[in-house]
């Protein structure tokens, strides 16, 4: 029928694949061949509209038209209703992708290319401003690059929110000793449940991370970088390795970057299922080939880091923000946000939510806007009851706190945290004493064992909560739990033991009824 080639986009992102994108791509190709249609299937990244995955897009003169979520059973009707021409009559048609309100209302700086491009295409990346930050950085001295990052106000996106520019300044100033070696380490051990923004960067726009790390290397004089990637992300691993190999071949990495004579080499190293290795000093131990035991600070990794050398350890999102900052200037980034939380944060809506996905917005949006306007309520259709923001070490928030603006300081003021921007929603069937028990249980499984309050306190925590759930000596055990939480907070070196009590305390404080009744379905014997 149509002689021209129609471009179809089907993501190769983990969630798209988990919802059947590979099978869909195969079936579409087979059906097109069967019908004599010429199509080119491009495996792009995800737009982050995960409730629509697999989201299929067709390129038309008006722009890309989206259909989703597409299952194999829909293929016939899509062809029958001329989806190759961008016909909008099909019930799965979402119209022009860029006009979908969930996407259109966002402020995508870091995720501007996500889902638009083929993640490993250097041409796609460069057509959409890729490597323009690197080209500028190659003409600047290290201090000028660090100053630009300081102007941006960027704070570490891993969760601790430490000013990135100040960390870089420390590494720039640090003496590397006789070897002259400094390192850039990317923390891609995204272990918090409810988070997938790092994964999306690596799967949808890996060159952005490569560019950000290379700029960091130029800024502080480091010629070797490592991406410490969790082994739970096999798709990201594959895509990163493809991208690094292509970038090396094209001269964006290696011994003579774009003919500048500057060197930066990059290697992906896999973790091995240990949540604690997301803590930066534990991560460094792991990279050195050791048990992931937390180190005492000081000395800071910026001064004594990987193999004892000055090291930048930054989260994926922090490094991914760098190309924009260098390309458009630090001030352009700082124009977004509020107070001391400048720029954007990619929020991740997850768990029991109707429209889960990635929402990049300036700081300051309220949690309720995200839950209601974007999320559209729970997946199960039941009332929302508790929302855990910031990962397994952060508080559960009751409805009375959902009007808090998403801002580091505003969240701190209510005893909560933004962490890495993950938002996990629970409906009214949740038993918060069971969630509190899990927080302690997770700490038992994942503690590195260095600090007694974390290693043993978490085991005692599970036992005490079990007694409370079994209605044994409730008042005394609630008091004991409260004491135990304080001991863990005050007596642990890192956030694992020091913050595990936060979700527990919030559950006790805001959902006391769940600790005051007969147990529902105790896990105690499991």
């Amino acid at each position, binding site marked *: 029928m149509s002689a021209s080639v129609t471009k179809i986009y089907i993501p190769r992102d*983990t*969630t798209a*694949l*988990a*919802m059947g994108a590979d099978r869909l791509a195969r079936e579409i190709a087979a059906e097109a061949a069967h019908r004599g249609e010429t199509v080119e299937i491009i495996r792009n990244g995800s737009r982050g509209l*995960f*409730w629509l*995955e697999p989201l299929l897009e067709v390129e038309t003169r008006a722009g890309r038209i989206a259909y989703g979520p597409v299952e194999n059973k829909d293929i016939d009707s899509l062809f029958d209703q001329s989806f190759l021409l961008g016909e909008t009559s099909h019930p799965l048609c979402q119209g022009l992708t860029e006009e979908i309100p969930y996407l259109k209302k966002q402020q995508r700086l870091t995720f501007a290319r996500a889902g638009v491009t083929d993640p490993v295409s250097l041409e796609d990346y460069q057509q959409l401003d890729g490597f323009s930050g690197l080209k500028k950085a190659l003409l600047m001295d290290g201090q000028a690059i660090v100053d630009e990052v300081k102007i941006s106000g960027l704070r570490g996106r891993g969760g601790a929110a430490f000013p990135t520019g100040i960390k870089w300044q420390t590494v720039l100033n640090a003496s590397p000793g006789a070897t002259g070696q400094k390192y850039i380490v990317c923390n891609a051990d*995204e*272990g*918090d*449940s*409810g*988070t*997938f923004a790092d*994964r999306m960067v690596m799967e949808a726009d890996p060159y952005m991370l490569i560019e950000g790390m290379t700029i960091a290397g130029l800024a502080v004089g480091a010629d070797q970088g490592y991406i410490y990637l969790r*082994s*739970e*992300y*096999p*798709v990201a691993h594959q895509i990163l390795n493809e991208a690094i190999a292509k970038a090396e071949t094209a001269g964006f990495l290696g011994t003579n970057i774009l003919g500048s004579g500057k060197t930066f080499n990059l290697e992906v*190293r*896999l*973790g*091995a*299922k*240990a*949540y604690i290795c997301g803590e930066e000093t534990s991560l460094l131990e*792991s*990279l*050195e*080939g*050791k*048990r*992931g035991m937390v180190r005492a600070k000081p000395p800071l990794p910026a001064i004594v880091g990987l*193999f004892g050398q000055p090291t930048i350890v930054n989260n994926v999102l922090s490094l991914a923000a760098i190309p924009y900052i260098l390309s458009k200037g630090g001030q352009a980034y700082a124009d977004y946000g509020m107070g001391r939380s400048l720029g954007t944060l990619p929020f*991740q*809506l*997850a*768990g*029991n*939510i109707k429209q*889960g*996905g990635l929402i990049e917005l300036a700081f300051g949006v309220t949690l309720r806007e995200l839950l209601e306007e974007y999320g559209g309520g729970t*997946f199960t259709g039941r009332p929302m009851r508790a929302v*855990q923001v910031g990962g*397994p070490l952060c508080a559960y928030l009751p409805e009375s706190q959902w009007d808090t603006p998403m801002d580091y300081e505003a969240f701190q003021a209510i005893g909560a945290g933004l962490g890495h921007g*993950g938002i*996990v*929603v*629970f*409906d009214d069937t*949740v038993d918060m004493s069971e*969630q509190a028990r*899990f927080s302690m249980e*997770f700490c038992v*499984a*994942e503690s*590195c064992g260095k600090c007694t309050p974390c290693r043993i306190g978490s085991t005692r925590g599970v036992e005490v909560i079990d007694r409370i759930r079994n209605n044994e000596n409730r008042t005394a055990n609630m008091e004991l739990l409260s004491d135990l939480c304080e001991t863990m907070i005050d007596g642990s070196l890192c956030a694992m033991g020091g913050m595990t009590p936060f979700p527990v305390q919030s559950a006790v404080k805001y959902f006391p009824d769940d600790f005051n009744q007969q147990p529902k379905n105790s*896990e105690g014997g499991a």
Partner: protein
Amino acid sequence: MTAVNEQQLPVVTDVISGLKHKPGALLPILHEIQNRLGYIPAESVPLIAEALNQSRADIHGVISFYHQFRTTAPGRHTVEVCRAEACQSMGARQLEAYAKATLGVDYHGTTSDQNITLEEVYCLGNCACSPSVRINDEIVGRVTPEKFDQLIDELRSQPLEVH
């Protein structure tokens, strides 16, 4: 057992000589041995220790620290069920109970036909389409007990791979 180890040891020495010069070589070495053999045989520990000039206790300490490394052979397929919060909010507790009951094993156990090893995992990054499981290197979302049965049936009906 001895015969099996005779086939395995050349793989181990090959991996070690290929990777031992990398900075921080131990994790890459352990990953590659497990990739190729499915687990890290006890006999490889002294070989790694010697190559890296570390004690056997050091190597054992690293193997036992990380949840991923195993010292016994797994089943032909590994099924990991996510236990983390986002999946909990969508019924992961019921799913893990169902998985254990259906397969008749607890976590870290292997079915009696040596086909499937069940493992726990804390987050696969598929949190907007929970609950999730990972089957070998493939992640699957929105897993109901019915879908779990289908996935297991597919594994059971696959022809055996001959190594």
